[in-house]
């Protein structure tokens, strides 16, 4: 396995073969969990773990899985890993698991997982499959992060809230960073319901896809 190939497996899903904007998979959770940067990051990490290890497991078993029940086997592998992630979150990061509530469980239904298992892991060796899983998880996490930054900044006027790096920029809660109160504008900043609700992700995601395709016309009509 050459280095070029490994690099391509990792970087391709970030842009030209992005699971969300090009393959248009896993959009549901991308809409739901991108309300704040912190949640987007945690969800991204959880999905990276699950895609990588699901790809690895299925690739290791690929010659032994009976083809008639391969979907069932894939689903069991995914469900097993997601349950593990969910249990470990509950045991070692209880606050976070409470905040993500049902979304961790919903990774099971994330189409990226089934998509990659069917399209890649069943036909490739374990190591490339593992890298492909990490790459696609990263591609997913990247889009979540971009949408999360836009939604949190314009929705609640903050970034990374809930982490030690958290900043509140606008409104009377602004305690760090630029305090606009001094300057007399943005005093009446109310949380923007449109941005806070998952609906805004549809628009943001649409705009992201538009930008990506106008930069790279080859992507048009791929999916």
């Amino acid at each position, binding site marked *: 396995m050459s280095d070029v190939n490994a690099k391509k497996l990792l970087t391709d899903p970030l842009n030209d073969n992005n699971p969300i904007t090009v393959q248009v998979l896993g959009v549901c959770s991308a809409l739901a969990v991108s309300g704040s940067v912190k949640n987007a990051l945690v969800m991204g990490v959880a999905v990276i773990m699950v895609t990588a290890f699901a790809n690895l497991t299925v690739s290791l078993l690929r010659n032994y899985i009976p083809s008639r*029940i391969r979907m069932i086997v894939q689903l069991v592998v995914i469900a*097993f890993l997601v349950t*593990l992630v969910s*249990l470990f979150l*509950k045991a070692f990061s209880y606050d976070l698991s409470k905040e993500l509530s049902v979304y961790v469980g919903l990774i099971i239904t994330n189409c990226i997982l089934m998509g990659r298992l069917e399209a890649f892991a069943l036909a490739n060796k374990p190591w490339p499959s593992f890298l492909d899983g990490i790459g696609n998880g990263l591609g997913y996490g990247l889009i979540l992060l971009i949408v999360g930054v836009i939604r949190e900044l314009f929705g*609640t006027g903050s970034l990374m809230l809930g982490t030690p790096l958290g900043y509140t920029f606008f409104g009377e809660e602004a305690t760090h960073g630029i305090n606009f109160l001094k300057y007399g504008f943005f005093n009446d900043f*109310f*949380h923007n*319901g449109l941005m806070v609700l998952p609906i805004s992700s549809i628009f943001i995601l649409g705009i992201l896809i538009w930008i990506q395709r106008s930069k790279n016309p080859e992507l048009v009509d791929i999916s």
Partner: protein
Amino acid sequence: MSKFNTDSNGYTLGFLAIMVIIVGGSLAFISSALQPTIDANQELDRRKKVLKAILSLPEDQESVVLTEAYVNTEYEEKVSAVLVNYQGEVIEESIPATYDFRKEMKDKSRKAEDKMFPVYTYKNGSEEVYVFQMIGMGLWDEINGYLALKSDKSTIQGVAFDHVGETPGLGAEMVKHKFRKQFYQQSLFDAQGQYDFRVYKSGKLPKDGKGVDGLAGATLTTDGIHDMLEKVNNDYSNYLSN
């Protein structure tokens, strides 16, 4: 590739059986191994909420003071719990392990008159605070919390809220200090002893400042919080007027 005919019925069934045993067995093992940690987390979270309501700390202090060690020692030393009936009489001197507050409240087959309600008491020197457990319905899912009253059983010492699935940024703001601090030092009852406390729709708070301004963009969550407080008055009315 493999030695077996992977398409035969026998192989498929055997594969399924082995897979189910491995996956089911290991999940059951991990789950039971982690269960004590998860239970401890849940109990710590519950105690934290009780103390949050009792201590009503300033915003920047909450995360600093309420560490795991502090919460556990403070709770074990100063908080005691009893079960009272609808008439306000103490039935159990401690809360039995079999008592499930959520189940008790959701039980539609019995009326409030036949149910039992937990009361937590916080004793710190001469200071005494009563804490009542709340449960209600937000916009999407269950909301719950604790209401701490001063020894006059009317003035609110503090509140703590929690929710299962309210909208982040809107209804989920109910847990924030900014919203909770509005409750502090307000009285649940008017001069005649009648229940008089409202959580208003956002922006509708009357000029005299009595009551609480609701959450912006989360009217149904706000209504849920109002109903939840009212339910405390209904369930504990005899206990509160004693």
